């Protein structure tokens, strides 16, 4: 009853005002006031949505069909930016580099997060301290300072080669300046930051009812069997959540590649992340129309991968009954 649209209510009230009771009209006007009040509270968000999100999205869609260098007015060139992109070897490289990064960094990071979460879930002493130490890299890892550190760690005389020297492997190879390994130092940097998915896994593990393990144990299941038959299926919603989140972030990674390669995406474009190339074209050369086209392809690409993840999820993600849901 209360869900009747306010417009209809108000019209009704106006027509029959003399006959209506005072309390009725006061109730209606309070509903209208709540409506107005809500829109006032949402005003900053609406302004942001129009001026900084929806407006710029449409505007960048338009710019992607133009030649625009910021100095003169945009000039309509149709599909030319998109056609040029698919023939641009550096763009194709950036797509390949980014996909490689996503396909390696996300699974490695997830596996480490899940492994540590399982280890820490055994109820060991000092859990708080361990958890904090594993989480710290996740917190600091996105910063420029850590990217600078990473560059030195994997350099010719850096920490990695010093450590290899200790176990008898002497090498002066610089991991960051050889095209074959540079990207994998960035995968390692991403994997090192497994702390926040680990925390989410730990929260998920805690919600698995102990009765399930008791029942499995009564039925004679061993530890391995229990993991595959109870823990893993019940964790699939969280694995899925972490995977989608990490994938979306990985597609947009920028800082590590920018700092480790000194802004070039080198050596040999081997760390030319998509967003890094977008930055170079848009803000280095001021090809803003071209950069807008790149941005839109990225959005569509991320949307496609997210949709694929959701489509495949019904074959491997296992949702408990409603009662199992604690949110």
């Amino acid at each position, binding site marked *: 009853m209360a869900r009747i649209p306010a417009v209809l209510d108000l019209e009704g009230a106006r027509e029959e005002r003399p006959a209506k009771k005072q309390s009725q009209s006061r109730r209606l006007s309070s509903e209208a006031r709540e409506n107005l009040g809500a829109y006032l509270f949402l005003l900053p968000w609406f302004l942001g*949505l129009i001026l900084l999100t929806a407006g710029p999205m449409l505007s960048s869609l338009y710019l992607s069909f133009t030649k625009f260098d910021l100095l003169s007015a945009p000039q309509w060139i149709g599909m030319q930016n998109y056609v040029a992109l698919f023939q641009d070897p550096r763009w194709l490289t950036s797509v390949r580099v980014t996909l490689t990064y996503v396909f390696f960094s996300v699974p490695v990071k997830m596996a480490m997060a899940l492994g540590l979460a399982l280890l820490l879930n055994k109820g060991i002493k000092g859990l708080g301290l361990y958890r904090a130490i594993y989480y710290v890299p996740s917190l600091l890892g996105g910063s420029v300072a850590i990217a600078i550190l*990473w560059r030195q760690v994997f350099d010719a005389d850096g920490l990695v080669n010093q450590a290899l020297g200790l176990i008898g492997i002497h090498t002066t190879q610089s991991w960051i300046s050889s095209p074959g390994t540079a990207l994998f130092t960035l995968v390692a940097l991403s994997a090192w930051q497994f702390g926040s998915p680990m925390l989410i896994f730990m929260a998920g593990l805690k919600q698995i009812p102990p009765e399930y393990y008791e029942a499995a144990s009564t039925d004679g299941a061993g530890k391995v069997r229990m993991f595959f038959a109870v823990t893993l299926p019940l964790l699939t919603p969280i694995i899925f959540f972490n995977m989608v989140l990490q994938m979306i972030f990985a597609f947009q990674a920028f800082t590590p590649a920018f700092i480790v390669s000194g802004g070039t995406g080198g050596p040999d474009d081997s760390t030319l992340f998509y967003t890094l190339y977008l930055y170079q074209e848009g803000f280095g050369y001021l090809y803003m129309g071209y950069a807008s086209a790149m941005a839109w392809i990225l959005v569509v690409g991320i949307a496609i991968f997210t949709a694929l993840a959701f489509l495949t999820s019904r074959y491997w993600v296992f949702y408990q009954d409603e009662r199992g849901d604690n949110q």
Partner: protein
Amino acid sequence: MILFSARGKARPRFFTHLIVIAGCVLMIYPILWMVSASIKPETEIFTTSSLLPSSWSLDNYVQGWNALSYPFGTFFINSCIVCAGAVLGNLIACSMAAFAFARLRFKFKGFWFALMLGTIMLPANVVIVPQYVLFKSLGWVNTFLPLIVPKFLATDAFFIFLLVQFIRAIPRDLDDAARIDGCNLFQRYWRIIMPLAMPALATTAIFTFIFTFNEFFNQLIFLNDQASYTVPIALRAFQDSSDVSSFGQLFAMSVLSLIPIFGFFVAFQRLLIEGISTSGIKG
């Protein structure tokens, strides 16, 4: 059963600890190495992997502090201004929107809410070019406004969602009592909901601070003048300008730049970990 598990668990426990501690050392070693390198003499950084320097000094900190045209103090103050503005903006604008979504009835609410959720995952790259054009035409490049004003317009939709979830869990009886006592909407928001939503507001403030302090892409685009540099941009400029002989100084400034975040982590560890465990904030 009990006897069996008590006896059987002693050894695995020991190995678990061993693996977990070894992992901790591996995780934290690079950071310790950087701290140690920052107080070592320059010649020792790349010749020994030992954490303990033969002699130590704060020379790198003193020299690094003044390595660019402005002292690093300027960059820290700039970062603090940007962070303070961003935190204030997110607290005000996101809580207002969250109050409306969680508590008020209005037309097209479902549509707006779905739209808000949709913007959470939107890549920043798709709006950056037009935003740059807009802010440049307003003359805001090389000021902090492009980094602060969007927060006052609730563009960090994730925090709206976080606050909505929290406010929904506050009992409605309190609102009803306040309404009967004659509180208007603003009083309900300011006197009832805001004080009760303190934990979620604290989480919002802490994560906004950390994200803003670490943020690089936008600051790189909007701050081109050294007087307006924030810490990450200054570090990047320092890295570009430095040669092999000043790594100690670069490390020293990098260590300093991590201290505010690390301090926040130590001070608010419980809130941070709860925030991530329950809502999946990127950390």
